[in-house]
């Protein structure tokens, strides 16, 4: 893993500061909502990146963990009055446990087989929640709207607090991803991505590390799920467990560049405003034009930017370092000659 250069550090801090002051300049709820969605999908994409980008498991079932997180905290809050912050942790634990339970039998699946198994899993979860009376079946759950305060994860006068909470969550997911990517575990993940068999021969416990990746990712997705539930205050299987939602997570990561820490965040920053504003502009008639444009966008992106936007950015960066290295080489050679 490369060390962060001063220029990158400054750029990062600038972006962070801009994100922090953003709500002071933009008050319009629609724009704030779009940015909240960008951060939420940035978080989900980062979570996906850990299993998809680093460990090479292309999961199309992350929405199930998102939904499990949303449902766990909401169910506990509606029925037992449990604080959503505790529900957040509970949801994460439930999602991680389910991920382990489903990930273990799937640990010998590769490539397409793994992807299709994740779709089947997500569909099972959706069908079960669609028919399970205790969690409201197809009617979903409506969260209570009393006691708005930070300690109850509920605010009714402005979207700003939600913005800062999801910003914090997003940064947490980036930090987690950074630690995963730069630790020994990250190297194991990449080894597994390149070749299971070689990784295994080199002494990597493939099954264990795949499980760890799936569990971390599921926990982060569930956190986003709880946030979504507290933000929208109404969930049903069709809003938090639908397959296209999963596809959007994968798409964001791909567009930004899977396997780089900031890739999914960049993907979210491009794709979510694009799809949200087309929906706002064209979706009102309900004749499918907004989705038509969205589908077209996906096809075009994957045809012309299959490696993601991040690869373009880093290619420019790499060229720069290569020329500077070249200069250093020359200087060294010159000093040797002398």
């Amino acid at each position, binding site marked *: 893993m490369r060390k962060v250069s001063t220029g990158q550090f400054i750029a990062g801090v600038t972006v962070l500061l801009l994100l922090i002051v953003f709500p002071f300049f933009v008050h319009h709820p629609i724009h704030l909502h779009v940015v909240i969605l960008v951060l939420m999908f940035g978080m989900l994409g980062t979570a996906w990146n850990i299993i998809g980008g680093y460990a090479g498991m292309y999961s199309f079932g992350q929405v199930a963990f998102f939904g499990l997180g949303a449902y766990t905290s909401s169910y506990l809050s509606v029925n037992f009055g449990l604080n959503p912050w505790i529900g957040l942790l509970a949801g994460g634990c439930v999602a991680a446990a389910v991920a382990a339970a489903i990930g273990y039998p799937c640990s010998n699946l590769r490539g*397409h087989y793994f992807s299709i198994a994740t779709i089947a899993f997500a569909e099972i979860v959706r069908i079960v929640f669609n028919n399970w009376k205790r969690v409201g079946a197809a009617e979903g759950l409506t969260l209570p709207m009393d006691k708005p305060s930070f300690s109850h994860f509920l605010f009714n006068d402005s979207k700003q607090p939600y913005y800062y909470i999801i910003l914090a969550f997003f940064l947490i997911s980036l930090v987690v991803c950074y630690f995963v990517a730069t630790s020994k575990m990250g190297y194991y993940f990449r080894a597994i991505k390149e070749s299971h068999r070689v990784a295994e021969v080199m002494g990597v416990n493939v099954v264990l590390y795949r499980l760890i990746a799936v569990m971390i990712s599921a926990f982060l997705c569930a956190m986003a799920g709880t946030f979504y539930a507290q933000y929208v205050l109404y969930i049903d299987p069709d809003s938090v467990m639908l397959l296209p939602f999963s596809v959007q997570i*994968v*798409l964001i990561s791909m567009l930004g560049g899977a396997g780089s820490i900031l890739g999914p965040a960049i993907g979210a920053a491009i794709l979510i405003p694009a799809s949200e504003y087309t929906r706002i502009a064209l979706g009102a008639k309900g*004749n499918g034009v907004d989705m*038509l444009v969205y589908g077209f966008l996906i096809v075009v992106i994957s*045809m012309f930017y*299959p490696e993601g936007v991040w690869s373009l950015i880093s290619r420019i960066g790499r060229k720069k370092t290569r020329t500077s290295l070249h200069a250093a080489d020359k200087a060294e050679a010159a000093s040797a000659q002398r």
Partner: protein
Amino acid sequence: MSGQLLQQLVDGVLIGLVYSLVAIGLTLIWGVMNIVNFAHGDFLMVGMFASFWLYTLFHIDPLFSIPICFFGMFLLGMGIYRFIVRKVMKGPLLAQMVVTFGMSIFICNLAVYLWTPDFRLLPPTILQGTWQFRGIYFSIPKVVASAGSVIASGCVLLFLKKTNMGRAILATEMDRDAAVLMGINTDRINGLSFGIGAALVGVAGAFLSTYYYIYPQVGGLFGTIAFCVVALGGFGSVEGALIAGIFVGLAQTLGGFFFDPAYKYAIVFSIYLITIWIKPKGLLGW
């Protein structure tokens, strides 16, 4: 009880054979190009709508619109391969998966835009009514659709095993590099198998339109089931898809019979997950 059970068995086999036909097209594409075509269900929807409009506008019975569906979808498949899929074949695996998802969303919403999201049903065609045999009902459109599936699958197998072109497809499926060395134009084979895959699902759509609801989102359900059938039957195996289709059809109806019809697809997917846990490459995969 036993009569009802027998009825469920019959229904399971009848719907299972249609699943097989949908899945054979998918498995061919998957096997030859190593691409999962997530737009496959939407190709089915296009086939169903084609058959619907041919009947509504030109009074061509679905049974006779099958050849039109076959060739129309064949050309559509070839075109999609040439202009879209071929471009992403060289790209990473992820881009190949996502591009077909994009096509799926596009085709589905194009149908919503053109024909509204309404549910439609063809009026009774020349295939109608039921046939009773010892207390078990056979719906005639379903029987014809299943028989058609069997015939179409048989034709595909004959084509693959007996003709030079079919053997070239199988060779490409087994070992792409070796096929190139034998002088097979694998690019043409890719296009051909994508076309045949789409054509087969078009035929399945024409058969299904005689008794199933026609609406833009119909592809989602059938597509997901077809993935399970393919993965269950094994990578690129036509015979496997045939057997797995019947298996899935039976799992669906018997699961609905013994547990709860609301959970029938959850049962199908669970059985699929258990099967690939035991046999990761599917029943007949290699």
